[in-house]
């Protein structure tokens, strides 16, 4: 899809990044008739030809096992990235561990993301008002709700309105039908409900009905092939089969790939005049534009701003790179004897989880009955999965010979998993800055990460582990995952790949980098549409909210441009 930007194409707006934030900005701006150039650091990528849908694991090296070159396995739709990117290192300060997942491909991480798409609720936009921690967003749920509706309708989200506290319903007609749950999910649900815990249809950005569009026709899910491999039929949402071709169809978009933006350049009055990028040969280029939109991902956006000026561009608040957030994570697995040797059927479904466990203790939380302030959810699992480098027998197999073959048949599909995903509160010990020594292959200083979980997160994880064990025990199961204390069971910083907050939005210039429309307080023609603008990170996976806010911010930008304000 990407073509060399024509030399004569002079964009009004240059967008840095083609993932969720950049793709949505390109879609909204081009539809408003604005000439737009997207710069993508990675190579061109087309999931129709490049993804490995329906390939078997035995066709891949090492049965498609993860390696340092393909951290999520051979078929994962991550190009030239993962926990490391050749030539683009990052560092962690002494005593800190932070892991940063990147890809270098058109569409960025939307090509492989989990597609889990819950909405933030009213409490999530006003966290400080509720418990005195962190900071409130400059916008309420009510202001964002219509943008959620529009975004869900546009990208396609399966789900069911369930009317639970702080888990908002969508407007009628917005959500696509939920698939039937798997037997394992129905079992988890039965035990959860028995313990007073809800388990409801999950919301995922995967189509259960086709969406027709002249430039981006998308088929309904055909109930096979892992979404993480990328979706050549367009059912699982990614910008490469939706927002980018839709924007391209307007005739107003150009895309340049292999263009790694290093700096935003400003004029004598401090306005942005364009960006500098390096091509794959390391040659630097300048692109001039009326407006610069940063959507490079939370950490790369911070890196660009910090490299653009001593002390950081758009940083009179001093908040660029600060308030770095991730989601807490841990996994509790169990072996369930009642599932041993169960009848076989095709359990792929839509690949994603069909049910999940949303946070359910808001009343107890408000009453001060919990020893942790913010919520979490469980992403549940357990199925007859495609055999590969792991067979998923839960370590129950023993011995050898004919009895081992019997073990494999008996224990396959008899394990359940409860994956905790929880809210982290911003803290002063978790941030990124420029490394004083290390540089990338373009000669630009790289990011150095500082990271610390607080006791809020550790106690939340302890609660998540304890409750998951209760649910496994209620099913007569035994816990098979390692029994670690919560401070060791909690994932490393960055490991859940929900980096957010490095240019947070706020209600005034002193405490934040942008206003509620992602507009820099310092530079009126600089707008940020990726996850770096998040004021907090509710436990609800962030991509849907990135998309909704990017849509809102881009519509606001388009209207300012139309009025000649920028």
């Amino acid at each position, binding site marked *: 899809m990407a073509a060399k930007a024509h030399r004569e194409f002079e964009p009004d707006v240059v967008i840095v990044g083609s993932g969720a934030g950049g793709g949505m900005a390109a879609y909204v701006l081009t539809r408003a008739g604005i000439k737009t150039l997207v710069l993508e650091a990675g190579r061109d990528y087309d999931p129709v030809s490049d993804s490995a849908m329906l390939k078997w694991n035995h066709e*891949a090296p090492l049965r498609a*096992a993860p390696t340092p070159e393909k951290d999520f396995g051979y078929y994962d739709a991550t190009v030239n990235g993962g926990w490391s990117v050749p030539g683009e290192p990052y560092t962690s300060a002494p005593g800190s561990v932070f892991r940063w997942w990147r890809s270098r491909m058109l569409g960025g991480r939307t090509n492989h993301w989990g597609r889990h798409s819950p909405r933030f609720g009213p409490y999530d936009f006003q966290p400080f008002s509720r418990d005195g921690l962190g900071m409130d967003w400059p916008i309420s749920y009510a202001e964002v709700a219509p943008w959620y509706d529009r975004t869900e309708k546009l990208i396609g989200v399966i789900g069911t309105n369930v009317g639970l506290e702080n888990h908002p319903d969508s407007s009628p007609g917005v959500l696509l039908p939920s698939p039937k749950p798997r*037997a394992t999910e129905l079992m988890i649900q039965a035990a959860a409900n028995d313990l007073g815990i809800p388990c409801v249809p999950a919301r995922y950005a995967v189509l259960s009905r086709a969406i027709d569009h002249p430039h981006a026709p998308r088929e*309904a*899910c055909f109930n096979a092939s892992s979404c993480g*491999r990328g979706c050549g039929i367009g059912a699982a949402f990614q910008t490469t089969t939706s927002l980018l071709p839709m924007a391209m169809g307007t005739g107003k978009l150009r895309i340049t790939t292999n263009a790694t933006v290093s700096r935003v350049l400003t004029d004598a009055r401090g306005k942005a005049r364009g960006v500098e990028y390096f091509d794959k040969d390391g040659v630097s280029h300048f692109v001039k534009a009326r407006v610069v939109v940063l959507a490079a991902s939370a950490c790369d956006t911070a890196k660009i701003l910090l490299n653009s000026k001593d002390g950081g561009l758009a940083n009179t608040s001093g908040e660029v790179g600060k308030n770095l957030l991730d989601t807490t994570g841990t996994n509790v697995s169990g072996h369930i004897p009642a599932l041993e040797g169960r009848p076989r059927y095709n359990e792929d479904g839509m690949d994603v989880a069909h049910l999940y466990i949303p946070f359910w203790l808001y009343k107890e939380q408000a009453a001060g009955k919990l020893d942790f302030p913010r919520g979490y959810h469980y992403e549940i699992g357990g199925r007859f999965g495609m055999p590969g480098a792991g067979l998923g027998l839960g370590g129950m197999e023993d011995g050898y010979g004919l009895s081992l073959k019997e073990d494999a048949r008996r224990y396959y599909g008899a394990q359940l998993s409860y994956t905790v995903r929880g809210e982290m509160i911003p803290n002063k010990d978790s941030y990124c800055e420029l490394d004083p020594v290390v540089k990338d292959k373009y000669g630009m200083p790289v990011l150095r990460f500082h990271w610390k979980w607080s006791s809020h997160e550790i106690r939340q994880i302890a609660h998540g582990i304890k409750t998951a064990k209760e649910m496994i025990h209620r099913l007569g199961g035994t816990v098979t995952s*390692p029994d670690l204390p919560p401070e060791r069971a909690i994932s490393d910083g960055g490991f859940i790949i929900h980096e957010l907050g490095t240019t947070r939005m706020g209600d005034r210039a002193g405490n934040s980098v942008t206003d509620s429309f992602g507009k820099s307080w310092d530079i009126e023609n600089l707008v940020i549409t990726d996850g770096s603008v998040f004021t907090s990170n509710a436990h609800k996976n962030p991509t849907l909210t990135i998309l909704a806010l990017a849509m809102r911010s881009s519509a606001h930008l388009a209207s300012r441009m139309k009025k000649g304000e920028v």
Partner: protein
Amino acid sequence: MSEISRRITLAWLATASAGALALEGCAAPAPNAAPMLPAPPPTPVSLWQDLTLPRITAPGYGYDPNLNKPVIPWPLTLEPQQREVLRIAADLMLPADAHSPSGSALHLDAFLDEWVSAPYPLQQADRRLILSGLAWLDAESQQRFHVGFAQATDAQRREIFDLVAFRRKVTPQYQRPAQFFVRLRGLMLAGFYSQPEGIADIGYMGNNPTTGMYPGPTPEAMAHLNAALTKLGLKLVKI
């Protein structure tokens, strides 16, 4: 726990927690937790030796391989005798039955060779464990029966497997070879059941595109679920 096994365990845990493809059954080398039974007649000395092996320096497949035309760029490295021991071990581990062929018929020796010849850290740690283990099988056979493992009888080979194969029966001096066995078994299970014959045996029915909404569990699967829930004092939730 020795340094090498600690590192291997950490590597396994890291891989398992990476999410996409957990190497199940390898994350927790269980023998430590198992109750000990009275020891059989002890072997005089522990015959296990951790081999020191040169690093594999062959290239990997890189950060952007062609996913639809996979190639394995590293050369295979096992000696013919090691491949022969692996074929014998594969047939002991996963013999042919009415449902699927034997381990050697599905070329598990070739898969193990591919695995331990790969240049990545997990596979290099496995290389040391697996190759040390193959040498131990021979040493144990030589000491007991004065022939190599490949020349031993089926009953003699089983006697050696029985030392390490059952988690509740491993005696202290066989802890280390038992770790090898757990890893070998895990790799052989993965190599076997990921192939079409193994997939048919274990009953994976997916990777099969269908139109329309996902139909959910079959009536038979629902009947099984309902019976299981009833036994647990639970009932299906109406959605």
